[in-house]
């Protein structure tokens, strides 16, 4: 009787773990390794070409900005933010 109960408990636990693992796999995307081309296509599909913030072409040189300001008779709008060692997209 004790062995039967232990077996049933282990089987239930395994079913439960399996279910959770499958659920997690579904939620986070496929856990199966993809091929080279498949990964590239997936990445291209997930990168949005038209996020709103990319609609503004920010200049990074004040001298160029001021030259354009004089030429077009428009004021500069400056966005001053913290930076990383390399040109950062995250902010």
């Amino acid at each position: 009787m004790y062995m039967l109960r232990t077996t049933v408990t282990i089987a239930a636990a395994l079913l439960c773990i399996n279910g959770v693992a499958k659920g997690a796999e579904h939620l986070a995307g496929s856990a199966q390794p993809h091929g080279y081309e498949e990964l590239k296509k997936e990445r291209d599909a997930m990168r949005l070409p038209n996020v709103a913030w990319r609609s503004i072409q920010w200049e990074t040189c004040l001298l160029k900005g001021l030259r354009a300001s004089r030429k077009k008779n428009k004021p500069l709008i400056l966005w001053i933010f913290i930076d990383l060692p390399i040109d950062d997209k995250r902010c």
Partner: protein
Amino acid sequence: MFAGAAREVVFSNPEVIKRVRKDFIPVALKAANVQSPPAGKEGEIYKELLRTRPAAQGICTMNSAGKVITWSLSFDNEASVLQYLSHARKRFANAPKGDLDAERFRRFPSVKLQDVPGNGLLLQIPNRHPKDEQCPGELRQAKGSLKGTIVGRAFDGKGQPLQGTRSQDNYVEDVLEITANMKSDLLQAARNASGRFPLPASLAREFVANAYLGMLDVNPLGGDRIRAELLTQSIEFWAEKNETGRLTVGGSSKVSAKNREGIATDAGRKWTHLVDLKWHGFIDLEPEYKGIREIILSGHGNEQLKWGGPGSRVSPDAAKNPVAHLPSGRWLNISSPVRYWITAKKS
């Protein structure tokens, strides 16, 4: 938080985008250059920003003479942003090329700070940098390094990517730098390996350090730079070469951190962040291990991020009116499946 919040709720607003494109010259500057102005003529203009700024980060307008028109750190509401742009245009029309007092607002237009009077100095501003001078705003990539990009998405319970892509809580793009040393360590390890071998730790860390949702301030591996206390760091990547010179890469990473404590200036800053990922991908090498040709790598797993909350300096009202709370952002409480894709290609 300021920059992430500004991009999400100010510079992603279609009306603001339209007005900025039509009526302004948009220039993004790094706060470090304002704090420590570089040498040269451009540095002189940075000094004007330093002289007048109300805070380290902010939004500001400037005339053609390099004189500040109006600073603002936040806005009463969305309509106030457009009002700010009109206000700046009006002040510009009165002094497009002359000296003027710098107006400053903590919140435009209701919370005004004291103006900083014009100093009467008008600079001779050149059209461009001299040939031997590097622009301080220019991309600085170390010699021999490879630039990579990362795209990250949060998913809902049905496995669909979340659509609120203005927000870095749901969608991120970033760049990473694979340095000459990382490349050299990888090539040497691949050359010497006969089977599966561990990926050099610095390269694996570079992948993991960029794979997180949210703004710069919540990087689990950000360390002192973002005032973080590291709680967990487990990073294991391996690679296996095949006959074509392609490496198959796999691995796992689990990193977590929180706001550091015990420093008075950090009071009210509350956050935690956990990123747990499994990795898979490929690295193409050049013949005879002479370089890296291309990288494609994917990480999938789960992420938990909390920013603000009771006892923090982040206002509970910020979610309703985020443009009024740009400096500290809004509360975040995210727990979701995530995926990241890293790519890098030799140009």
